[in-house]
């Protein structure tokens, strides 16, 4: 399996990722998660707007997956905490998210993520969080 296939297989194993309808694209070591719009993702039907929890979930999933790639681990890390800032309401269109691993420590990693829609420069939400690394994490020189 190539990295893209391995990633797709990893996401396919997560029932909640399937519930949301999340897809992944990997270019080199940079991951983009794509959340195609679906009616059940709506949180405010009057605007309408995506549910904030869904946008937060997308960024958390992106952070976990990017971290699994960066730490060369087969298992997903565990979330310790997440901080989500909502910048604008999510329109009923496709949403994208990317994450940046800020620091991988011996046991804990710090990751930032952003979600956007039509324009990459206009993020609809931002997240930063801490994640507990699985025991099989391989640290490469310079990462800790």
């Amino acid at each position, binding site marked *: 399996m190539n990295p893209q296939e391995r990633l797709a297989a990893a996401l396919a*194993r*997560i*029932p*909640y990722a*399937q*519930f*949301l309808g999340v897809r992944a694209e990997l270019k080199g070591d940079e991951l983009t998660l794509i959340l195609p719009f679906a*009616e*059940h*993702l*709506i*949180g*405010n*039907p*009057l605007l309408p707007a*995506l*549910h*904030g*929890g*869904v946008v*937060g*979930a*997308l960024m*958390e*999933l992106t952070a976990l997956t990017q971290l699994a790639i960066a730490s060369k681990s087969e*298992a*997903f890390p*565990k*979330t*310790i*905490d*997440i*901080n*989500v*800032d*909502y910048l604008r*309401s999510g329109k009923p269109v496709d949403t994208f998210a990317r994450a940046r691993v800020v620091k991988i420590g011996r046991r804990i990693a710090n990751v930032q993520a952003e979600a956007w829609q039509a324009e990459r420069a206009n993020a609809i939400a931002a997240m930063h969080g801490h994640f507990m690394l699985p025991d099989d994490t391989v640290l490469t020189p310079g990462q800790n």
Partner: protein
Amino acid sequence: MPDSPIAYGAGDTAIEQVNAMFRFTPQAKALGVTVTKTAKGRAWGRVPYRAELVGDPDTGVIAGGVLTTFLDQLCGAAAILAMNQPTVVATIDLRIDYMRPAQPGRDVLAEAHCTKLGKNVAFVRATAYEDTPDNPIAHVTSAFAINARKPKAKP
């Protein structure tokens, strides 16, 4: 369409109105989120365990994202329940601290409390658990923007 979020559905009591609001929210309905008890500025709720909401297929633990949505929804309800004139709220930020994984196969309960209702911003804290809040799964700290209603022009 009503501009008051708790005027969406039928119901005389606050709990019926909040549950009507949740049923009117497609993602809350998709997760099966319900409110079990309400008080001034407080909401108690439940998200049922379902296999399709699992985030870790090896352990069967429910996905963090499910709790994010559930707790965001419940905190918003607590903010609205603090108001004398209910209006629409929008999440400004939400922080979740995970103390431990949720127990596989069990519903997650939570209680949210609006600790301060300002003119423009409401602050809400919440705790998620299976049995009692003194054995928490997660703690939440959140802030909501209050969309103040424009006063109607006098005829």
